[in-house]
C-alpha cells in the first residue's frame, strides 16, 4: 500500500470534517475520492499532502510515517483546483521550480523540463506566462510542475472543477492515458461520479467525514454498500420496497410479467435518445423509469397510459432504507 491513513479525525470548530477515517491507497493506481461537497474528501487529501494537520490519527506514505512531516518534506505532488500557478514565472520556470529548489544541475533541469512539457503537450508554450494560457493548459502545466519532482504520490484536488464541460472531458481522458504511461500512485478528489467511474481504478466514497465504501467502479455501481452510495453513483428510484436504477425497470403495457406493479404515466420528458417517465403506481409510489425513445414509441406511450413495472433481470436491488437517498 502506498498511502495508509489510520484513525484520522479532523474538526474545524464544531464541524466534524473527518470522523475516524481509515483508508489504504494501493501503489501505482489511480484512485478517486468521491463524495458530495463538504463531505471531507478535500480535507483528507490536504492532510495526506501535509497542507492541513489532523487532530488525531496517522498518515503513512510509502512506509514512512508522515504524520508530523511538513508538506515540503513529504515528496508529494499536489495539483489545485484553481491551478495555483506562479504568475510571474514562465511556463518552463514554473515546471522547473521544484527541481531548482532541489539544486539539481542546470542541464538536467532543462532536459527534464523539456521532457515534461512534451508529456503535457505544452512544449511550444514554454516561454509564455501562465496568464497567456487557457484553463486546461494551465492545469496541464500545474500537473507537469507537480510531476517534475518525481513525487511518490500525486494528489489532485478537484483538478478539473474550474474547467468547462468539454475541456473537462478531454482532460479526464488525457489524465487516464497519462497515468497509464507514468504509473505514479495518484489520488484525485471529485464530486462528479461520472468522472470517478470513468477514470479511476478504485473509488473511495466519502460522505459526512466517513468512508462509505471502497471498491472498483464496477463493484460500487453493481454492489453498493448502502443507499447513499447507490444514489450518489447514479439515479435511484424505488419500486415496491427496493431501491434500483430507473433504467433497470422493465415496462410493459400489458400485465405479462409476474409481480408487475400497475401504474399510470404522469409525466413524460424526452431527452435525446431517452425518455424519462414518472409513473404513479397503485401502491402510491412515484417511480422514475428511463426507456429508450424507440421503446417508448413502440408502446405508444403518452401521459395517462397505464403500464406495468417490474425490476429487470440482473438489476442492482437493495432494500429500501427508512430515509431514502
Amino acid at each position: 500500500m502506498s498511502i495508509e491513513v489510520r484513525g484520522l479525525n479532523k474538526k474545524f470548530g464544531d464541524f466534524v470534517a473527518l470522523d475516524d477515517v481509515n483508508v489504504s491507497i494501493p501503489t501505482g493506481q489511480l484512485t478517486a475520492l468521491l463524495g458530495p461537497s463538504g463531505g471531507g474528501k478535500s480535507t483528507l487529501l490536504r492532510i495526506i499532502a501535509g497542507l492541513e494537520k489532523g487532530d488525531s490519527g496517522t498518515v503513512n506514505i510509502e512506509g514512512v510515517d508522515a504524520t508530523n512531516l511538513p508538506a515540503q518534506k513529504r515528496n508529494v505532488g499536489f495539483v489545485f483546483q484553481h491551478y495555483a500557478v506562479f504568475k510571474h514565472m514562465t511556463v518552463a520556470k514554473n515546471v522547473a521550480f521544484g527541481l531548482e529548489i532541489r539544486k539539481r544541475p542546470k542541464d538536467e533541469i532543462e532536459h527534464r523540463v523539456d521532457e515534461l512539457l512534451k508529456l503535457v503537450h505544452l512544449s511550444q508554450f514554454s516561454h509564455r506566462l501562465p496568464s497567456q494560457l487557457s484553463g486546461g493548459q494551465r492545469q496541464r502545466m500545474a500537473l507537469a510542475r507537480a510531476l517534475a519532482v518525481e513525487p511518490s504520490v500525486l494528489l489532485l484536488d478537484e483538478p478539473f472543477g474550474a474547467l468547462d464541460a468539454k475541456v473537462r472531458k478531454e482532460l479526464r481522458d488525457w489524465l487516464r492515458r497519462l497515468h497509464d504511461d507514468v504509473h505514479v500512485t495518484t489520488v484525485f478528489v471529485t464530486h462528479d461520479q461520472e468522472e470517478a467511474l470513468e477514470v479511476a481504478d478504485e473509488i473511495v466514497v466519502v460522505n459526512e467525514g466517513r468512508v462509505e465504501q471502497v471498491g472498483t467502479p464496477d463493484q460500487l455501481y453493481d454492489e453498493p454498500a448502502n443507499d447513499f452510495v447507490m444514489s450518489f453513483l447514479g439515479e435511484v428510484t424505488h419500486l415496491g420496497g427496493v431501491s434500483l436504477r430507473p433504467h433497470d425497470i422493465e415496462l410493459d403495457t400489458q400485465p405479462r410479467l409476474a409481480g408487475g406493479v400497475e401504474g399510470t404515466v404522469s409525466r413524460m420528458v424526452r431527452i435525446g435518445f431517452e425518455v424519462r417517465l414518472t409513473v404513479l403506481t397503485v401502491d402510491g409510489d412515484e417511480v422514475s423509469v428511463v426507456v429508450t425513445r424507440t421503446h417508448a414509441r413502440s408502446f405508444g406511450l403518452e401521459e395517462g397510459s397505464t403500464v406495468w413495472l417490474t425490476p429487470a433481470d440482473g438489476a442492482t436491488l437493495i432494500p429500501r432504507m427508512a430515509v431514502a437517498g
Partner: protein
Amino acid sequence: MIWFSALVLIPLAAIVVTAIDGGWGIFWNTITNGQTLSAIKLTVFTAAGVTLVNIIMGPLIAWVLVRDRFWGKSVLEVMIDIPFALPTIVAGLVLLSLYGTDSPLGIDIANKRPAVFLAFLFVTLPFVVRMVQPVLEELDRDVEEAAASLGANRITTFRRIILPSLTPAIAAGAALSFARGVSEYGSLVLLSGNLPFKTEVTSVRILSSIENDNVAGAAAVATVLLAISLTVIVVLDLIQRRVAARG
C-alpha cells in the same frame, strides 16, 4: 488626456518655462548657490533614506495587518491612515510637542537633522503599507501551498513567490513615499527650525525665494526637484520591471 494636461502637464510646463525665462544665468546661479544645494541634498538624501526604511517596514506592517490576528488590529488599521488624514501642520505640532525642546520623552531633536527624517517618516508611513496590503490580500494561499508541496521552505517561498508578486506595489509605494518626502513642508517646518545649511529643505527654500520676489529662482529649484522626482520614479519602475521579470 485633456484632464491630465490641465491638472498636471500645464502647471509643470509653466514651472519649467518660468525657470527658463529667468535666463540660464539665474538658473545656474540659483541651483549652485551653496544654501540651495545643501537644501536639495538634505531633502533628496533624507527622502531616499526614509523611502528605504518604508520599503522594509511597509511590507512588514502590511503582512501583519493581512495575515496576523490580534487584539486591536482594527484600531491599528485606522491608525495607519492618520498621517494621510492629519493636516501636515498639525502633524508638525504633534511632532514638536513630542520631540521638541520640552519633550516629555526626553528626546529633543528640534532644529536638528533627525527632525527632518522623523517628519518625512511620519507622513510617508502609509504609502507602501497601503499599496502592498491589497496585493497581499489577493495573494492565493494555494500558491504558497503549491510551493511548499514542491519542497520550498518558508524563506524560499517568500523570496521566490511572494516577494516578486509584491514588488510592483512596493515600488509604486516607494515612488509615492519619495515624492511626498521631497515635497514635504508642513510637518517639518516647526520642528526642524529651517536653519540654512543644516535643516532647511527645498520646499522651505522655494518659499523664501518667492517671499524675496525671486520667482525665477524658486522655479529653478522647483525644476531641479521635478527632474529628481521624475528620475527616481522612472528608476523605481525599471527596477520593478527587472525584478518582476526575473522571478
